[in-house]
């Protein structure tokens, strides 16, 4: 057990681990609501209880789980399921690129686990706490990271299991798919504060509604490709049209 822990976790002091736990604790309620909704939605959507438990344990990505649920329910082709999860999860690639410098010296097993645990909230808290640290990859930073990640993982797993177990009690006409969609909107809104994202949402949304009848749920992929390209084009156009900053006058 100890050897296993040493292989996958970087050594860290107890008090920084506890600091990480304390800073994630206030968010445990929100994580649990989200886990509960996901658990109920999976079982309510028709997934078996063992299936939902296994998916929750291994996949550990709420937005990807909720996003792929309606696809799995209709037996969409697996590549469409995987690509959808990949698209939803691409934001984590940015997180990984941004926080790699703290973890880069660790052995690969520890980097792999740290990456797996680097979700939305953990990344946000860690960046706020150590964003301007001069020394990177200290044991204190690992402790804080693991502390927050532990709360996140435990709250997410337990609340999902509760949701999966009680999910069968709710009649489907109570509309838990809607609760799942609303939970996704909560991830979506904070990312939608800029003009290119708003345009992308509008174009993708309209296309997705009018291509919903396409076979094999291909409308989803088509709308994301077109909507995403429009958002990127809007961003490029906007950054070009912005006034270039005046060059700094060189000190005489």
């Amino acid at each position, binding site marked *: 057990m100890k050897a296993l822990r040493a292989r996958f976790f970087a050594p860290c002091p107890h008090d920084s681990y506890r600091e990480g736990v304390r800073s994630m604790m206030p968010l445990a309620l*929100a994580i649990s609501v989200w886990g509960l*909704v996901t658990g109920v939605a999976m079982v309510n*959507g028709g997934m078996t209880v063992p*299936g939902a438990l296994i998916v929750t344990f*291994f*996949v550990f*990505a709420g937005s*990807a*789980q909720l*996003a*792929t649920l*309606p696809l*799995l*329910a209709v*037996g969409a082709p697996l590549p469409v*399921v*995987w690509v959808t*999860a*990949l*698209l*939803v*999860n*691409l*934001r*984590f*690639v940015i*997180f*990984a*690129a941004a926080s*790699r410098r703290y*973890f880069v010296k660790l052995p690969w097993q520890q*980097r*792999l686990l*740290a*990456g797996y645990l680097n979700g939305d909230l953990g990344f946000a808290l860690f960046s706020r706490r150590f964003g301007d640290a001069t020394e990177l990859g200290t044991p204190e930073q690992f402790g804080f990271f693991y502390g927050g990640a532990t709360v996140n993982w435990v709250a997410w797993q337990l609340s999902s299991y509760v949701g999966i177990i009680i999910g069968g009690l709710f009649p489907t006409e109570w*509309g838990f*798919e*809607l609760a799942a*969609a*609303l*939970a996704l*909107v*909560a991830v*979506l809104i904070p*990312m939608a504060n800029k003009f*290119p*994202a708003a345009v*992308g*949402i509008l174009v993708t*949304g309209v296309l*997705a*509604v009018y291509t*919903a009848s396409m076979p094999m749920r291909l409308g*989803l992929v088509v*709308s*994301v490709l077109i*909507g*995403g390209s429009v*958002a*990127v084009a809007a961003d490029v156009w906007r950054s070009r049209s912005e006034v270039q900053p005046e060059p700094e006058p060189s000190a005489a």
Partner: protein
Amino acid sequence: MSPFHDWAYMAFATVGLTVVTFATRGSFFMLPPSVQLPKSWERALKYAPVCALTAIVAPAVFTKQHEPYISWSNHQMWALLAAGLVFAKFRNMTAMICVGMAVFTALRLWT
């Protein structure tokens, strides 16, 4: 048979989804330090998740049996509107889901 009871389908789906989690979250943690994220990719990576989430949420709310359902009697539309306003104002996901579901349930029972 429901796809959820097709164990091979679910097993392959789950394995793939797990690989996606590790591949995205672990991506730059596992790549050699010399590999950097190209600036031009950042935009695409930023907007793809926004659009993918939209492509899931929009049909869930605005379609019925895969056909567009944009009508005053679409209860989910009003629930989404109420939930969106609550989230924009209070930034609280729990309140947002509760209000959205309350609006949906009220409309479902009383109209």
